[in-house]
C-alpha cells in the first residue's frame, strides 16, 4: 500500500472512532450546526413555495373563493360562540376545582402549526412543521390533530421556526396506552417497515388473558412524562394472545396520509 493511502486510511479510521464516541450533546450540536448552515436555503425555498402557492390561490375562481369565505365566516361565528361558552365553563370548572382543593392544573395550551414537509428521511416516520423555538416549542412535547395523537416533537431546527415531529407510526415513538372499558394497559408504537396509507400500530405488554374486542377505543394513560392523559390513539383491530402476554393491533384514529394542521401541546394536564 502506498504511504499516502495508508496515512489517509489511518486518518479516516481515527475520524470514524472520533465520530462514534461523540456524546449525545455533541451530536445535537453537530445537527444544530448542520441545520443552521442549510437554513438560509430552506428559508428561500420555503418563500418560493409560499409565493407559488399564493399565485395558485389567486388564480382560483373568485366566485368559488367568495362562497368559501362565506362558509368560513359562518363557521367562525359558530366557533366564537362555542369558544366563549368553553371559556365560561373553564373558569367555572377552575373555580369548582379550587373549591374542592384540587391541585390539578387545568391549563391546556396548544400552538397550531402546518405540516410543511413529509418523510424527510428514509427510514424514520417524521414530518416537519412550521413552528419552532420562537413559538415556545421544545423537544418531547405531544403533537395532536383534531382526531387524536399525532406524535411528539423530536427535534427543533436551530435558527429557524421549524421542528420535526416523530409520528406515532414510527417504531421509536412509544406511548403508554389504556384500553377503554378494561383494565388493560400497554405500550403502543408503530411497526417497522409499515408506512402505507393506514398502518396499524402495536399495543404490547397486555396481560396474557386480555379480554379485548375489535372496536374498543385506546387512549393515552398520561404516564411516562410526555403525553397528557385521555388523548385518543385509535381502536382495537385484532388481538394476538401469547403465553406470557398479549399484543393487539390498533387502527390509529389519525389519518396520517392526510395531515395538514397539527397542534403542539406546550402546557397541559399531566
Amino acid at each position, binding site marked *: 500500500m502506498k504511504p499516502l493511502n495508508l496515512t*489517509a486510511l489511518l486518518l479516516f479510521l481515527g475520524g*470514524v472512532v472520533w*465520530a462514534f464516541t461523540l456524546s449525545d450533546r455533541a*451530536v445535537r450540536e453537530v445537527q444544530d450546526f448542520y441545520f443552521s448552515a442549510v437554513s438560509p436555503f430552506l428559508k428561500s425555498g420555503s418563500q418560493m413555495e409560499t409565493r407559488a402557492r399564493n399565485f395558485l390561490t389567486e388564480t382560483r375562481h373568485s366566485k368559488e373563493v367568495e362562497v368559501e369565505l362565506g362558509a368560513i365566516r359562518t363557521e367562525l361565528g359558530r366557533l366564537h360562540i362555542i369558544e366563549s361558552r368553553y371559556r365560561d365553563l373553564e373558569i367555572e370548572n377552575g373555580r369548582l376545582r379550587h373549591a374542592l382543593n384540587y391541585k390539578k392544573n387545568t391549563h391546556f395550551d396548544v400552538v397550531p402549526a402546518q405540516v410543511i414537509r*413529509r418523510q424527510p428521511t428514509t427510514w424514520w416516520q417524521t414530518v416537519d412543521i412550521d413552528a419552532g423555538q420562537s413559538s415556545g416549542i421544545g423537544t418531547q412535547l405531544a403533537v395532536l390533530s383534531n382526531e387524536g395523537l399525532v406524535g411528539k416533537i423530536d427535534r427543533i431546527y436551530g435558527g429557524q421556526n421549524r421542528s420535526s415531529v416523530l409520528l406515532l407510526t414510527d417504531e421509536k415513538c412509544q406511548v403508554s396506552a389504556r384500553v377503554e372499558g378494561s383494565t388493560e394497559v400497554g405500550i403502543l408504537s408503530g411497526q417497522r417497515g409499515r*408506512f402505507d396509507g393506514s398502518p396499524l400500530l402495536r399495543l404490547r405488554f397486555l396481560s396474557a388473558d386480555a379480554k379485548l374486542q375489535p372496536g374498543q377505543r385506546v387512549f393515552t394513560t398520561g404516564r*411516562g412524562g410526555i403525553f397528557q392523559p385521555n388523548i385518543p390513539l385509535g381502536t382495537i383491530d385484532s388481538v394476538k394472545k401469547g403465553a406470557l402476554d398479549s399484543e393487539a393491533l390498533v387502527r390509529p384514529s389519525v389519518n396520517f396520509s392526510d395531515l395538514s394542521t397539527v397542534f403542539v401541546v406546550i402546557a397541559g394536564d399531566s
Partner: protein
Amino acid sequence: MLSSLEIHKLIVIRYSFITLLLLLASFVVQQFLPAFTGFYQSRILLVLLVFLCAAVTVGQPTMLMLAFVGGFFWDAHCGIGPHGGDPEVYTQQVESLRFGYSILLFAAMGLLMQGIQPLFRRGKWQFSAYLSGVAIFLYLAAEYAIINFVRGDFVLSKATLMQMLFTSLLTMLFSPFIFWLLFRIAKLCQHSINPDAGRRRQHAHRNQ
C-alpha cells in the same frame, strides 16, 4: 517554476476540492427532494449518488475524505433524538443507530465503486452508472439490516423491499447527469478523470 508533477498535483487538489463542494451542495438540494408516496415512499438519494459518482473519479485518499464528510453530515441530516420519557414506564426503549455508522457505509460503497475504476478510466462510465444503482441498493439493505440488528426481530416487508428497489432505480437514473457534471468540472480544472480513454483515442487517431 513548477514542475509538471507539481502542476498535476495542484490540478488534482483543485478537482478534489470542487468535488467536495459539489457533495456539500447536494446536501442542500437533498432537502428539497420529497419522497414519492406512490412508489413505496422511495426517494432520490442525491448525496449518496454524488458521492458514489465522485468516488470513481478520484483516488483512495480523496474518496475516504469524501466518505467521511458525506457520512458525517448524512448522519446529522437523518439522526433522530433520544427516546425521552420515564424509563420506569418505557422499560424497553427502541434503540437508534449510532452516529457515524454512515461514514463506514459510505466508505464501503466508495471502495466498491473504485473496484471498477479501471473500466471508468477507459471511458466506460456506463458500468459505473449501473454499479451506482447496485451500490445504493446495497447501502439501503445494509442500513436496514443494521436497524434490524440493533432493534431485534428481523422484519422485511414487501413494501420495504420495493422502497429500496425503487429508491435505487430512481437514483440511478440521475447518475449520467452527475457524471456529465463531473466531466465538466474536470474539464474546467484541466484534469482528466479517464486518462486511459484519452490515450486510447490518441492512439486510434495516430493509427488512422
